[in-house]
């Protein structure tokens, strides 16, 4: 079965979801990411969903799970690039992904991760980088 590729960049893992995922693929990503974080002792995970035209409750839950699991492994997760139509729909659906940090794009996401991973075990203000 195809898998979504996970790239390593320094202390961070990068995932770019470019396909319309079926449920099994999403679960596979969850498993793969958790394993890679543990393997590499990554401090940050960046998930780029700018290609996703839809996020339903299953994918939303997957993102939430990944954020939670990575936190347990002492890594921060940032989801970037959600499209406006997707954000509006997700909120209407009833999900706001409270446990998931977000940023507008990959660049901002990396800044966010850099700020948070600079202080080991530090707690970065939710959603906004503290200067």
């Amino acid at each position, binding site marked *: 079965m195809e898998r979504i590729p996970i790239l390593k960049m320094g202390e961070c893992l990068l995932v770019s979801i470019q396909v*319309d*995922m*079926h*449920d*099994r693929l999403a679960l596979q990503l969850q498993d793969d990411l958790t394993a890679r974080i543990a393997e590499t002792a990554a401090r940050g995970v960046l998930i780029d969903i700018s290609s996703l*035209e*839809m*996020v*339903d*409750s*299953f994918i*939303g*839950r997957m993102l939430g799970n990944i954020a939670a699991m990575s936190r347990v492994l002492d890594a921060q997760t940032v989801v970037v690039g959600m499209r*406006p*139509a*997707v954000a*509006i*729909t*997700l909120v*209407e*659906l*009833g*999900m706001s992904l409270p446990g998931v940090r977000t940023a507008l794009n990959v660049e901002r996401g990396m800044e966010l991760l850099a700020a948070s991973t600079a202080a080991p075990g530090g707690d970065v203000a939710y959603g906004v980088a503290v200067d």
Partner: protein
Amino acid sequence: MVLLSTDQLPLERDEHIVIVRQTVRQRAVELGFSLVDQTKLVTAASELARNTIQHGGGGTARIETVNDGLRRGLRLTFEDRGPGIADIALAMKDGYTTAGGLGLGLSGAKRLSNEFAITSAIGEGTRVTITRWKL
């Protein structure tokens, strides 16, 4: 109500949900729905299709382009011959789930649509129909 096109798709496996999403997207684009409306249709379809497989034990999705004489719309019907829902009001509550999900499928699909109808009885399966009109 005039029927302009029909797509009938099976819902037995995981991959079928993706096909339903793609077909709904295609028909929505053809009808000229805005991007947000397209996304709402596809997302609602995804939720209901998943319900059909996970709770209904499999079934079918029917995607119909309709015309009520004055406007066009997309009507989606999800049908299964599964166990049926005992308490529909309860099932429609946000957060209520019997399969470890989030419990947003039915209520969410309703919020994302202009019209929502559900028929279900124990031992007789479930049918959910949602419609969105192109204004």
